[in-house]
């Protein structure tokens, strides 16, 4: 079967003060459809740049990026992208924020109102649909941004550190919740994180990136069966995966 995302020899560089700054160097990455794939790496190694390129926002690159069999140079990919910032519109309430992608695509009128309400409760936002972003906690805001991404057209979801700004407890809670919802829907997800435990817990496979210029230094399949419950984090298998990621990150 065709991989959902297939990246070969991707190089991206920026010019900073007239000097060329290599951000990504020969990145090779394959993600099969329906897999949860994490990308972990130190800050500034080019993870967000990788996503921006896949989303078609970064035009100056060499190498090839194929999304669902189409080279993104020839046609803009349909991709659901959640940026590092939540970017909620403060003048819109939760429901209005969530339906923005449908509204822009012109499909909101044909969308079943019950479907939206069901998604709102599935994402744990029941009772908050009429609240405004400034009335929500950090975790709630991330749920809203995630649901908005969920409703974007596109078979591949790019999530750039969705839980990066949350406190440890909320973060754990959100991880449990995301595993549950992902195991139910099985979308193709590319997920950026700084957090080793988060990467192992959520993913089917993990790509490890090295410091600048960013490249893939390790690829590990996480063969832990699903559904996963939060107590697996203490099993020897889980700890072994963590150890392998730690040593890969130290290279």
């Amino acid at each position, binding site marked *: 079967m065709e991989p959902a995302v297939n990246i070969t020899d991707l190089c991206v560089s920026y010019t900073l003060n007239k000097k060329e700054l290599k951000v990504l160097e020969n990145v090779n990455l394959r993600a099969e459809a329906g897999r949860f794939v994490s990308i972990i790496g130190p800050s500034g190694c080019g993870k967000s740049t990788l996503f921006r390129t896949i989303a078609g926002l970064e035009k100056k690159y060499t190498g090839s990026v194929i999304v669902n069999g189409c080279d993104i140079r020839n046609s803009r990919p349909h991709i659901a992208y959640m*940026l590092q910032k939540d970017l909620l519109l*403060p003048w819109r309430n939760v429901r209005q924020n969530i339906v923005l992608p449908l*509204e822009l695509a012109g499909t909101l009128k044909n969308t079943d109102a019950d479907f939206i309400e069901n998604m709102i409760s599935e994402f744990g936002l029941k009772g908050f649909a009429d609240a405004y972003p400034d009335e929500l906690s950090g975790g709630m805001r991330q749920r809203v941004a995630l649901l908005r991404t969920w409703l974007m057209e596109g078979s591949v979801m790019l999530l750039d550190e969705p839980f990066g700004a949350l406190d440890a407890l909320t973060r754990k809670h959100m991880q449990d919740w995301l595993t549950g919802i992902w195991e139910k829907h099985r979308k193709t997800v590319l997920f950026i994180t700084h957090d080793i435990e988060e990467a192992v817990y959520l993913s089917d496979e993990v790509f490890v990136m090295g410091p600048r210029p960013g490249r893939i230094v390790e690829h590990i399949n996480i063969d832990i069966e699903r559904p996963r419950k939060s107590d697996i984090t203490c099993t020897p298998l889980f700890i072994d995966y963590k150890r392998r990621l730690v040593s890969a990150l130290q290279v």
Partner: protein
Amino acid sequence: MRKFTNTGKLSLPVSFAAIIIVWETLVYILKTPNYLIPAPSAVVQAMIEAFPVLMRHTSVTLLEVILGFASALVLSAVISLLMVRFSVLYKILWPYMVISQTIPLYILAPLFMIWFGFGILPKVLIVVLVCFFPITVGFVQGLTSTEPELDELLQVMRATPSQILWKVRVPQAMPQFFSGLKIAAAYSVTGAVLSEWVGAQEGLGIFLTRSMKTFKTAALFADIVIIVVLSLILFYAISLIEKRVIRRRNLL
């Protein structure tokens, strides 16, 4: 905390009353002649005496202000939107707008009178000129201050330029748009009065010059009070509309 908010609310009326009392007492003790500095009580008396005349003048000025402000509002909104949509227009128009602000009003006012006569038109035009700039600056700034990441997200969602304008840029610009409106409202009355100075039959500016020439300083102060009150009413009317339009307080 409660205590502080309460004193905050009272601070304006208390300080205002204090100033009036001190002023009145000083004038009384020093026996300052009324044509130099009239006591507050003399100002009130002058206002009561001249009330019908003052109101006639006020209505003329108010009409100029409202016509000028409304025209400036429509003009600014249209031109701002066009400039943001077509950046060529911005590059062409912006320098002229800045230049228009550097020409002193007291030179433009007599010029406008020469071109457009002694009627209401030149006064309205001055008010338009005074209001146009702050409204446009505020609106354009609001329209163009999108986070770059939000622009990228909209691009990924394949939003059309007009969707970006109406669904994101315009609502996002509202706080700055209203800031501009409030500045314009505060200046608009002064603009109208200034244009009347140069030549008019009626208006607060004319009443002002007449009081000045006849050394009716108390009447002059009464006129100033009305100018201030008028400006304040306009300012707070805009604030009130702002609160209805922008329901959420911390918008940015």
